[in-house]
């Protein structure tokens, strides 16, 4: 059965109008007792792309995975604090009773990983599998969503004639767009992207970027990026992280820093401690 808003416990909802896609308050994450995220408080706007930048090991991916509780799939993880996500118009506590099984949360939050994680099945089956087994949709709906998602990700023209071919035969860029299409087919309330262009060549990376420019109008996106240029091109909100803490937040309307300044801030340890 697909998870619907009727499953949600009203006591967990906030009644005020929602202008944000997610809100973290005093979030701390530990792995085997070692603190990785320190007292993170952050609001994700309901529209646009929030980009997390920072050095390797600064906690960007861990922070990204707190939204869909994916850290819990890793051994020794413990998270403290309040995490609320806007799902189908309701602001929900991701650790609340409605999400005792984290899978019920994750069907609402799409995620794309750094390396294309296509399943070793056909292109079609890659999108079908979660729709059938996580959402429990009938075949007619699956077919409709499949085509729509492939069109949204700009892949339909390239794969419509070979939907039954192995997904692994696609190029790296196409595989990453297939992963994006798989997430979009779930009609997510929030889209998480973990360095989605890191393993791609510059042309494929630009294709994904162009795609994100169109998707930002329809989905709130939280994205990790190691490319400062890309972060500055895409970010509506830029979050600089260091040592598991948020160091600085910029909004596009208030002006983003230029690349050299951002680079200096990343290199300068003293600014981030």
């Amino acid at each position, binding site marked *: 059965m697909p998870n619907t808003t009727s499953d949600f416990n009203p006591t967990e909802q906030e009644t005020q109008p929602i202008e944000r896609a997610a809100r973290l308050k005093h979030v701390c994450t530990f792995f085997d007792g070692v603190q990785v995220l320190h007292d993170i408080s952050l609001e994700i706007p309901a529209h646009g792309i929030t980009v997390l930048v920072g050095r390797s090991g600064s906690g960007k991916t861990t922070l990204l995975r707190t939204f869909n509780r994916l850290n819990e799939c890793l051994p020794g993880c413990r998270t403290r604090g309040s995490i609320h996500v806007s799902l189908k118009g309701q602001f929900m506590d991701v650790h609340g009773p409605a999400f005792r099984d984290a899978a019920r949360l994750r069907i609402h939050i799409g995620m794309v990983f750094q390396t294309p994680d296509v399943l070793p099945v056909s292109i079609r089956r890659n999108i079908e599998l979660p729709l059938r087994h*996580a959402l429990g949709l009938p075949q007619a709906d699956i077919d409709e969503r499949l085509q729509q998602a492939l069109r949204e990700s700009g892949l339909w023209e390239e794969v419509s004639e070979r939907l039954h071919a192995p997904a692994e035969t696609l190029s790296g860029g196409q595989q990453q767009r297939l992963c994006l299409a798989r997430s979009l087919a779930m009609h997510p309330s929030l889209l998480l992207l973990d360095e989605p262009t890191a393993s791609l060549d510059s042309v494929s990376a630009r294709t994904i970027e162009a795609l994100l420019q169109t998707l930002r109008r329809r989905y709130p996106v939280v994205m990790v990026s190691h490319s400062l240029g890309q972060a500055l091109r895409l970010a509506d909100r830029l979050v600089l992280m260091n040592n598991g803490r948020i160091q600085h937040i910029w909004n596009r309307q208030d002006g983003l820093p230029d690349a050299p300044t951002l680079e200096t801030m990343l290199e300068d340890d003293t600014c981030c401690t």
Partner: protein
Amino acid sequence: MLALVGVLLRNGTGALGQALFFDSVPPLAAITGQVPVWDGIWPACVGTLSLLALTMLLALGPGIGCGIYLASYASPRIKALLGFAIDLLAGVPSIVMGLFGFTLLLTLRHSAAPNAGPCLLLASCCLALLVLPVLVSTTRGALEALPRQLHLSGAALGLCRWKTMRHILLPAAARGILSGVLLAAGRAAEDTAVIMLTGAVANAGLPAGLTARFEALPFTIFYRSSQYRDALDLQQGFATTLVLLALSLALLAAATRLQRALDQRWQGIRTNRPTQHADRHA
């Protein structure tokens, strides 16, 4: 392998024929059980297939289930304990397992089942215990060899733990698990020490039921090659070995076909190029 097959072919081909299987009984009457076969290996073929089917029926569920549990659900402490027990069981020689079955039978005769005797069910239970570690280890190994990312992908797609296992991990590990099933089936088909102490006899006819004694190819081979009266008897022993080898190869071929069919079903991959229209309405 070539030398082994060469020796078997040289010594056994001459005896391959209808008489080896059915002696002088008409094949149809023998196959349908209307006329008993006392000097052919047909009852042993049926006995081996019955033994194999029953053994795998008893061992597959617990073996694969335990492998899944150890690979994905067990705590490190349970993993270590259970893993050690499975390794111990894997090291038990088959003759010891046969003796265990025999002792179990004696215990049953003196307690709950005074009329119990060596039979197909007892032999299958002992064989199932014998092949269990193979199934557990190969299933666990195949699942643990999968990339960690597959677990994360399944979770990120909104599949619960069991659905990730059922729809992503198990199909991805199917090849490895099936190789374990084949190994276990091969071991069950060829083992002699266990069945000679728990139910196999030289002459029993077709298996009459779970609680009846039975004939089996490995025991027939052992019996004929150790008790042969003339050259023809020995030649028939070699020919029976060829039949057992053919049976194993047939199992392997069937398993490979099954593997391909399951893979294709899971992956949804077709070799031909369907039209866009067909894709939409598939």
